[in-house]
């Protein structure tokens, strides 16, 4: 049966990127190198035309894969090696062509901006209930893990790597749903459970240029490798995008007027927040990403100024489900300290008839060491991670640094206003968390993947390979070097 970790085929399998480059450097590969370079030159000199561009790349990849099969240094290789060579080729070619084809036409750029704006508005008021996510499957804190996977999509240039971000996001959601279904004794979660969560996570993650990213995967991921489960989950995110485009009051089970009002006040709040940031003209090519992160950096001053207000509201919505924080930007009452809340909660728990039910989610709470088996390690570790995440997120939402909460639990939240931690602020509440500098990438990657050891290994491998370095080898004659531009 499929559906588990390793069924995404070569989309998430380790890529023998070094091996590919190694072989490409062999004299016997000279003809291949020549064809690839000539394709890239010819292609780069033509005006963008997404339909034609996609067809040309697909055809070229197909032909080259056929040629690999028949000639040294790949002739006689196993299917697996050939597959891996095809992956390497795709990554190489698309890394070279990225700036030329990604968001290369004005319509796509415009769609990116519109979709981004729509999601930034929606994310301020949408609730899981609006999408039919049943209470037993609601787990906003853990969904942050899935959001992080999706937000990595702009860190990569190769279609395969971008697709892997989508698939990892889906995998995290699936794992969480599965855990929840076991806890609540439900059938294995199906599309009824999965799609709404994916939509919710996508809106909350709101990675910049999502539309272009999805089109790019669709156009340039080799079609023979976008099949089966990978294709299913990719279709789900396409369908999430389509749903989001069409969201209106009705599709969220809201009165249309109410919906418009919520959108308007969300827009007002957003405008207030980004008053002095000129909206970057997202022209597609080159360092859209870099420029974005620069703009965002520039905006951080204004963000920091507003971070207190934004902080309480933003994370209040995310983390404190039953809080009375309003979505309409009305002033929020002063945040209590964590220990105050803890005391209050403990007192309430003691009077709670449903106490046992509340702890069902934490099956190890009353276990003794002797009860545990090796098989429990994984789920114990999972539970631990969820718990830490919730705690840290809660602490963050309260405006208290997690490390210090134990020692001095009543740190006034106003300290945060001056603190220099924009990344953390962003992480929990804003899609701008995507704007990591490349230095952050590695450490960034260390956390969420830990949820799934296998993914972690793969992703580490993936990120450890910096295309820039490897491409140096063939750079001399390389006609275009987007990396250096």
């Amino acid at each position, binding site marked *: 049966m*499929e559906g588990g970790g390793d069924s995404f085929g070569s989309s998430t399998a380790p890529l023998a990127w070094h091996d590919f480059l190694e072989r490409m450097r062999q004299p016997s590969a000279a003809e291949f190198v020549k064809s690839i370079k000539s394709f890239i030159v010819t292609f780069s000199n033509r005006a963008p035309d997404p339909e034609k561009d996609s067809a040309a790349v697909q055809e070229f990849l197909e032909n080259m894969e056929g040629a690999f099969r028949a000639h040294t240094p790949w002739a006689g290789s196993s299917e697996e090696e050939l597959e891996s060579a095809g992956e390497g080729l795709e990554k190489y070619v698309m890394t070279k062509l990225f700036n030329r084809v990604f968001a290369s036409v004005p319509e796509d750029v415009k769609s990116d901006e519109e979709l981004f704006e729509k999601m930034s508005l929606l994310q301020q008021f949408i609730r899981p209930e609006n999408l039919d996510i049943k209470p037993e499957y609601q787990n906003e804190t853990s969904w942050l893990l899935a959001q992080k996977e999706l937000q990595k999509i702009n860190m990569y240039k190769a279609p395969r790597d971008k697709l892997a971000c989508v698939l990892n996001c889906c995998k995290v959601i*699936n794992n969480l749903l599965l855990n929840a279904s076991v806890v609540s004794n*439900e059938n294995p979660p199906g599309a009824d459970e999965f799609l709404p969560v994916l939509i919710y996570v996508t809106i909350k993650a709101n990675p910049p240029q999502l539309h272009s990213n999805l089109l790019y995967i669709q156009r340039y991921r080799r079609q023979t490798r976008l099949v089966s*489960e990978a294709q*299913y989950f990719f279709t789900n995110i396409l369908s999430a995008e*389509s749903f989001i485009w069409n969201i209106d009051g009705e599709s969220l089970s809201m009165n249309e007027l109410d919906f418009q009002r919520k959108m308007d006040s969300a827009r007002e709040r957003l405008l207030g927040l980004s008053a002095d940031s000129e909206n970057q003209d997202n022209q597609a090519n080159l360092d859209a990403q870099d420029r974005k992160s620069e703009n965002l950096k520039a905006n951080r001053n204004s963000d920091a100024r507003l971070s207190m207000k934004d902080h309480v509201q933003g994370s209040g919505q995310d983390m404190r489900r039953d809080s009375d924080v309003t979505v309409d930007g009305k002033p929020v009452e002063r945040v209590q300290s964590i220990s105050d809340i803890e005391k209050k909660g403990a007192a309430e728990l003691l009077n709670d008839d449903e106490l046992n039910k509340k702890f069902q989610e934490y099956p190890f709470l009353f276990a003794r060491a002797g009860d545990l088996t090796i098989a429990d390690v994984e789920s114990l570790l999972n539970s631990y991670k969820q718990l830490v995440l919730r705690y840290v997120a809660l602490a963050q939402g309260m405006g208290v640094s997690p490390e210090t909460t134990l020692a001095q639990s009543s740190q006034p939240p106003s300290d945060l206003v001056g603190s220099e931690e924009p990344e953390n602020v962003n992480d929990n509440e804003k899609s701008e968390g995507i704007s990591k500098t490349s230095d952050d990438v590695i450490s960034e990657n260390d956390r969420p993947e830990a949820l799934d050891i296998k993914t972690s290994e793969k992703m580490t491998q993936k990120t450890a390979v910096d295309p820039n370095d490897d491409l140096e080898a063939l750079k001399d004659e390389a006609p275009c070097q987007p990396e250096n531009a």
Partner: protein
Amino acid sequence: MGCSSSVPARSTGGLNTINSDASSATDSKELRAKLVLLGDSGVGKSCIVLRFVRGQFDPTSKVTVGASFLSQTLALEDSTIVKFEIWDTAGQERYAALAPLYYRGAAAAIVVYDITSPESFSKAQYWVKELQKHGSPGIVMVLVGNKADLHENRSVSLQDAKEYAEKNNMFFIETSAKTADNINQLFEEIAKRLPRPTES
């Protein structure tokens, strides 16, 4: 809720199911078939799939996976191996407009209604029309009346459904995901109807 867990019926007619991962992808007779299920919410689509996929497995197996994408392999008598890739679709009304994204390129579509619900039968007819308009040409369409175990509350007659299916060139079968009646037969029939790749 939950699909009943009575003993699954074994396949009949000399057809054998085999473990999906054991089959070699390079076998020229392996056929990969994308299959979607459409129908009103609550008619039993998810249960049918779970019954089909799970029924083939060792009931002591502890492996549970998500049920949104499942695959199951069937070996036919002519030694063709069909690997079904079953795409679940969200059934809530607000997601109905997304269905075309899912059934695009499908080799087969199972349109399900509940024999105790005339509304679900009307909805099934809506899906048939949709598929005729927007489905891939040559898509194998099957009409399934599910919850046959509830025949005492039947409100869609066997005759009506049969006639409708015939008119629309569909295979028709009544099933029960609860008792596992006709579930394997359903998938075997689809497997037999799939166009075979031309020998090369």
